[in-house]
Each structure stands twice: as C-alpha cells, then as structure tokens.
C-alpha cells in the first residue's frame, strides 16, 4: 500500500531524511518511532504531498503522490501533529465541510458522519462548537474526520500527544477497530513505546534521518537482545538527549527555508 525507496529530503546543507526505504502492506498498522528531530514528521509530510522529496520514490496505492496529487489525497486521511479543526464550527459542520472537500456524495456523507460520530463517541456533542471540546474530543473528531472519505491509508502524526491515558487508550481502541472492520492501512508516528508495541503490527525506528531498524516488536527486541521495546529503542538510538540538537536543527531548517525564498 505504501512503498518508499531511497527517500531523501534536504533543507539547504542539512539532510533531514537520508535514503530511507520501507514498505507497508495493505491493512497493516505501521509505526514510526524516533527521538525528536529524527525526521518522522518530514517523512509524513513527503508521503502526504505537503513537501516534495529531494530524491527517491514514493508509491501510495500504486501511484506517485507528487504526480497524481489529487488522486493520492483522495486516498489518504491525515491527522496532523497539531490540531487542524475549525474551532468556530460544530463537530457536524467540520465533518460536513471535510466531506464536501473530499467529494463524498451527499447521502453517503450523512450516514457516514452519523456512523463515525457515534463510533468516536461524539454524537451527543455533534452540534457543539469545537472550541468547547476537550483535547481528547478534538483528537477523536480529527480522526473521525480523517476517516470520513473512507481512505485506504490513515496517517497519524503523534495523535496522542498531550492526551490523558484514558483518551489515549480509547483512541487506539477506535483506530484498531476501524483498521479491522474497514481494512484501513494505518501509518503512525509516536513517542510512546507502549502504544507502538500494543497497536502496531510492524515498527520502524528512525534516528538522525535514517531508519536504524525495522520489524515487529518481538523482532526488534530479539535483534537488540533486550526484553522491552523501550530498551530496544534506547539500544538502537542511544540515550543522549535530543531536545537541544532537535531545536538547533529545527532552527537551521527554518533558516534554510527562509533564505531560499
């Protein structure tokens, strides 16, 4: 369903993504793990047509998202790292707007919105403005919205960031259920090892722009002869803190982007 070959993205002199390759099968839940600034979000941006790769090939459901942009966009749903709802509209209106933008026929749209709002336990609040929602509800609404046009692939960029354990748990239950009933392929990034281990069929660990290991959680543990995914992760990526270097990199990236204009 997703196939990536030798994908590279440079920002000026800085290489954010270095020659990564991976495949995700149809119906699979695939997790990208990595410290801050590892290049996870850059990769997602390239997969979702928001950023052009410097070089390398991407295939989503057999097509290059940079050539067939609209067709590719129609085939995936995305939940961004930061919220992207219209706060001044109701949950229903946000769904409706998305449905129209994604050409979901009127009749299908209505039934699908009802189904998804009920699934994600937002039905009671369908007519409330989104700005009155809690963080968990907003997240759920975004995922429901991302699934409205029955995408073949759902991209989740750190969807549980800042949520309490209850909301996180509930969110993954829904995602797993949808993955099973609708056979949606899920590509997610997260910081939480336990989530990746619980939800994902396969995991890729990314560091400094490269994929350092990929496989099932069991395989990764075996590979590093550790007994938990967290230990495996630390064994693969080292235990030094990345926040500072990540900030410097982010700053560099911004500079590079600024001066290119």
């Amino acid at each position: 369903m997703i196939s990536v070959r030798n994908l590279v993205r440079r920002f000026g002199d800085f290489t954010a993504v270095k020659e990564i390759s991976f495949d995700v099968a149809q119906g699979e839940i695939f997790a990208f793990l990595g410290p801050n600034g590892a290049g996870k979000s850059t990769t997602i941006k390239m997969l979702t047509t928001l950023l052009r790769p410097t070089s390398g090939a991407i295939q989503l459901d057999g097509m290059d998202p940079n050539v067939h942009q609209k067709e590719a966009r129609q085939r995936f749903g995305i939940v961004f790292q930061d919220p992207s709802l219209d706060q001044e509209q109701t949950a229903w209106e946000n769904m409706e707007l998305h449905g129209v933008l994604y050409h979901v026929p009127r009749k299908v749209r209505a039934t699908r919105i009802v189904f998804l709002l009920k699934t994600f336990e937002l039905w009671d609040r369908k007519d409330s403005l989104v700005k009155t929602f809690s963080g968990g509800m907003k997240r759920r609404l975004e995922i429901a919205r991302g699934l409205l046009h029955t995408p073949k692939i759902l991209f989740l960029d750190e969807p549980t960031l800042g949520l309490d354990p209850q909301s996180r748990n509930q969110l993954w239950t829904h995602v797993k259920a949808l993955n099973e009933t609708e056979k949606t392929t899920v590509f997610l990034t997260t910081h939480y090892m336990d989530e990746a281990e619980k939800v994902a069929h396969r995991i890729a660990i990314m560091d400094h722009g490269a994929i350092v290991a990929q496989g099932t959680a069991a395989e990764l543990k075996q590979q590093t002869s550790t007994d938990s995914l967290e230990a495996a992760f630390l064994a693969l990526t080292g235990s030094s803190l990345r926040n500072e270097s990540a900030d410097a990199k982010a700053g560099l990236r911004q500079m590079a982007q600024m001066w290119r204009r």
Partner: protein
Amino acid sequence: MGAIYILWLRELKRYVRSRVQVVASLAQPCLYLFAFGFGFGAVFRQAGRGSYLQFMAPGVVAMTVLFSAVFSGIAMLWDRQFGFLKETLVAPVSRLQIMIGRTLGGATVAIIQGTIVLCVCLLAGFRPQSWLALPGAFLFLFLIALVFAALGTALGSAIKDMQGFQIVMNFLVMPIYFLSGALFPLDNQKIGMRIANQIDPLSYGVDGLRGMLTNVWHFTPSTNLMVLTVVAGAFLLLGAYLFSKIEV
C-alpha cells in the same frame, strides 16, 4: 463547485456567529458618520457644497466594505494559527477553488456590512437621488468588495504574523481609505493629491457609489467600472498566485 460553496458558507457562518465582531466593526463607520458627518457639516455648507452627510455617506459605506473585505482575507492568519488552513490545503481540490471560496465569502460579508451601514446612513438622514439608483450602487458595492477581498486574500497569504497585520492596516488600508476621496471632494486638488487619488483603486469605487447615489461624479461611470474590473482581476490573480505558494 462544492468546495467553493462550502468555504463561502463557512465565512458567512463565522460572520453571523461573531456578534461582537459585527457590532464592533459597525461602530467605526458609525463614528465617522456621526462625528465627521455632523462635525464638518457647517463648514461644508458654508463652502457652498451642500450637505456633508449627503457627500460622505457613500464614502463611509465604501470604507465599511473596504475594511471588512481586507479583514476577512487577513483572518487567514487565524486559520493558519489554529491549523484549519492545513485541512483545506491537503484536500483533493485545487487551491484556486479554495481561494475563490474564501474570497467570495469575504466579499459577501463585506457587502452585508456595507448594506447595514447604508441603512444607518438612511436613518441618519442620507437620501439617494432616486431609489432606482440602488441596483447600480450595489454593483459598485460588489466591485469594491471583490477588489479588496482579493487584496485581503493576497495579503493574508503573504503575511505570517500579527506585526505584519498591523503594518498592513496602518500603511496600506488606512491610506487607501483617506486618499480615496471618501471624506473630501477630489476636484481642485494639488497635483500630488490628484496622483494619489488616481492610483488608489478605492477612489473609483467611492466615486461610482457616490455618483450612483447622489449623482455627483468626479470620474465617469464607465471609467470607474473599467478600473474596478481590471483591478479586481489583477488582485484575484495576485491572490491566487500567492495563495498557491503557501507552504504548510
């Protein structure tokens, strides 16, 4: 078409729902209307130019449309901040459709605001030369709204923070208003002022509106129509171009 419609509708919903903003944005034109309209009335009459209220009311209506239209475009800053812009930019519709939907929505809101202020003017004692002139006046109202909503979209695509917004308001929108002849007659001006008037696209909008409503023209009706149409086209192209360049 669906995309254009739903984004147009969104602008209208936002407008109707933000009652505070509606009232606040009507307060300023009303202040101009009452403070200047009545304040300068005596001087204007002594200069033999008749009623100042009659003269400036179309200008205040044009100002309302100008502010409201530019503002709705710049409101894209909020959408950028709250992330909603991204949702529309990754949708499988062309950016042009998104830009048109937003711009038409902003223009429609501006026309509604202008109409409300026109009603306030009527209450204050303003009288059009003939009620039959209203459709013509609305044509100019529409063109002003379109020109400046497109400009607003262009600005909203180009600027990224609130400082930029302040600069635009102080160094672009206010001069456009003050130099347009909304508040004073354009005839017998010094050459510098005349040039400024002629560069300012709002001059033609104000003149068209005033001409239609009170039958006092500075330019000719066809000049006004032509300039506004051309400028609207140019700003729409500029807006579409800048909007297509937005990076998420």
